[in-house]
């Protein structure tokens, strides 16, 4: 049971990260590979805010949310907007976002050095709860609460607000959206901001969970995030959420029964399986498009 909960905690972080990918893919039909760099950046920034500026870890969350949004706007403007209308736009978008992500990581290294950073020892509350024989810390509850809260908030935004309708319209048919008078560029930029904000929160939450930030955390989660959205279906928010949690649970059970060093293979096994059997993913309706 403890394991199940651990799987859910990890899974909710995966889901939050994966949603960022899906949002951008939905609206622009492109994959933003700088997403992982935003994730890593926010972990470091979160630690700096808490360790050097004395901010409480709870405040670090909104701070990082805003940082992420800003980074998202930068990524959209620099890596994707200039490629609008180019016939190799999909491919070029992958490369340009890899490039911008690489630049962010290099800058991180300049500021923080290559070593792992941690939160100061007194940063975390020590409250525990016990529920039916299982131990949960306050921190874990907050992680779960924030993840779920943000995901539900996003679902509300997308399904019930004007902006959400605009986002869905642009995702389905940018030309029709433009004809309706939607400012497609602005909606796209906003989507990027939201996507990166969520990815940033995922980053700082993971940093809380493992109490560290490393340069390589981005690579690892990026591949898992990709696996999640492919399994869940590109462009499907529901798929990203459910896929993320499912991955978290699957990993925990794999570690239990097969061994911890095989944990990461689970994601790729699922990925391959889905790509071969049902390329549009569990919940996706999108056609698999050409580059």
């Amino acid at each position, binding site marked *: 049971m403890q394991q199940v909960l651990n799987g859910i905690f990890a899974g909710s972080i995966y889901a939050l990260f994966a949603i960022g990918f899906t949002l951008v893919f939905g609206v622009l039909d*492109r*994959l933003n590979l700088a997403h992982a760099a935003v994730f890593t950046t926010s972990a470091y920034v979160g630690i700096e805010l808490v360790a050097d500026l004395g901010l409480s870890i709870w405040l670090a969350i909104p701070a990082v949310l805003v940082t992420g949004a800003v980074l998202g706007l930068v990524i959209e403007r*620099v*890596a994707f907007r*200039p*490629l609008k209308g*180019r016939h*190799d736009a*999909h*491919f*070029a978008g*992958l*490369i*340009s976002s*890899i*490039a*911008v*992500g*690489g*630049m962010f*990581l*290099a*800058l991180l*290294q*300049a500021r923080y050095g*290559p070593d792992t950073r941690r939160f100061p020892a007194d940063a975390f509350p020590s409250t525990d709860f016990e529920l039916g024989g299982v131990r949960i810390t306050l921190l874990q509850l907050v992680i779960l609460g924030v993840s779920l809260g943000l995901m539900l908030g996003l679902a509300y935004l997308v399904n019930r607000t004007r902006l959400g309708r605009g986002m869905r319209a642009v995702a389905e048919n940018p030309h029709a959206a433009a004809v309706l008078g939607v400012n497609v560029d602005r909606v796209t930029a906003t989507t990027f901001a939201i996507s990166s904000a969520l990815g940033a929160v995922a980053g700082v939450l993971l940093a809380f969970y493992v109490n560290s930030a490393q340069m390589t955390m981005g*690579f690892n989660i*990026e*591949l898992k995030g*990709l*696996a999640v959205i*492919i399994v869940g279906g590109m462009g499907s928010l529901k798929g990203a959420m459910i896929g993320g949690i499912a991955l978290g649970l699957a990993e925990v059970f794999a570690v239990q029964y097969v061994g911890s*060093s*095989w944990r*990461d*293979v689970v*994601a*790729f*096994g699922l*990925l*391959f399986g889905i*790509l*071969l059997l049902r*390329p549009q993913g569990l919940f996706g309706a999108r056609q*698999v*498009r*050409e*580059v």
Partner: protein
Amino acid sequence: MLGDYTATLTLIALTAIFAYSFYAVLMAGQLSLGQAGLASLAGFSATVVMPDSPVVGLSPLVVGIPVGMLVGACVAFLLGLPVMRLRGVFLAIATLGFAEMVRIVLINAEWTGGAQGTSVPKLVTPGIAWGCLLLVAYWFWRLGGSRFGRGLAAIREDELAARAMGVHIRRYRMAAFVTSGAIAGMYGVLLAYFSRFITPDDFGFAAAVDGLVTAVVGGSLLFLGPLLGSGFLTSVPEIQRALGVEAGWIRPFLSALLLLVVILFLPGGLSSLIPRWRTPRLDPSIPAPELPALPPPGTSVLTLKGLGKAYGGLHAVRSVDLELGSGEILGLIGPNGAGKTTLVNLISGLSVPTSGTGTVLGIPLGPDGQGHRFARAGVSRTFQHSKLFDRLTVLENALVGAHVVTRPTLLRRLLWLPSARRDEQRALAQAGAQLARVGLADRAGVNAGALSYGDRRRLEIARALAAHPTLLILDEPAAGMNHVEAQELSTLIRTLAEDGITVLLIEHNVRMVLETCTRIVVLSFGEVIAAGDPATIAKDPVVIEAYLGSDGPADSRV
């Protein structure tokens, strides 16, 4: 001091070889990121197999490198089987996932030494590294001018058009993939026996990205690309060191910035700055190839019975009966949305009918994937929205068009066999003749993307003619042309028919159709509403109504 430079030299060669493994697939427009995993497997396999002492006086690498390449190629083939039907982003992610899986499996394995890796002797000298590099570069140099190489470039530029020209897409893409695997395998072995150490982590995500960056910065359009990319990127830290800049983060920052700048402003990479070679010269002593004669006038070329195509509940084409005989010029007209292009896609094998039957040049219309079968049988077409291979020259476009009537030359080109040169010259003669026929001979060396609109339309026709078609389908060739240009086109079409080619012409320019065609069929809402000679059709009130619309409310009830 000298030792430093030796290492750098070797590194440039190795980086270039790895970049070539990406180039091999980028040439065909595929983004595969699995090369690192293939290199890893190859490298470790070599450590198992390599003898400890020299073989026949030669370095043990003589065994190791071929083994590595074989492993790379085989694994690439196995990976390619399921993965080949994926496109774009999905292919990239799947191959990336594969590379990661390999890394994890190898880290956990006993025989590789786990995360600690395996220690091996240093066997790779700059000479060996550069020797291998030159072999690889040679392969791609010879590939560039071959039928296979052009086919790959065509797939990259426009896969549908390539398929319509008879290029076997699946086979070509798989071949590119396997080549990439072999080269990645070579790299894996060389890297191991250069660094004296091999661990699975050497072949992770970061390595894959580095290789990709090198290939993209160098450019995927010219065989020199990876070499340029490698030279450039490896010299950055050297320059940095020379300038006394020590910070470890600057190199990755600069290489990422460079990648961004290149992809935004110089999408063809550094190699696109190199001016293109002159157009190959035609050898006048070599005649155009002997091509089979076209069928005599009156032979049935096309028979359709009740042919239909429905998408869900929508009938794009409905119970069409049509017969076409050799030497005719048949005009297919009708208002917008009448189903003309759908019908033509059915006839050229790019789409599958949902009802009715049909035979084109003896081949029955049927299940998918037949585009290249029809091309081989003698059906050739142009497209409504120009599908030229923009980054190839006019001549190269025509050469791809000649795909089905030319022979593969790559293997013979590698050996510089004269028969290869003869076949190439024949292909050039065929392509050149078609360019002359449409009046583009003097622009043979120009990139297709740089042509004026009228010239583009003419190149489409030349490209279609290069396949020596029995049936030539022209999909709105006169779109956007003014009256004079349309008349020139009309004359050209009539000349082609005189030469024995059967022409099926779809056009909106009704005047042109009336002047050019021997027979006309009118489609409306997917059905044939009239057929006959031009004079009759022009006066047919049904036709006029189809174009101009009916008179008024049929009935005032809702």
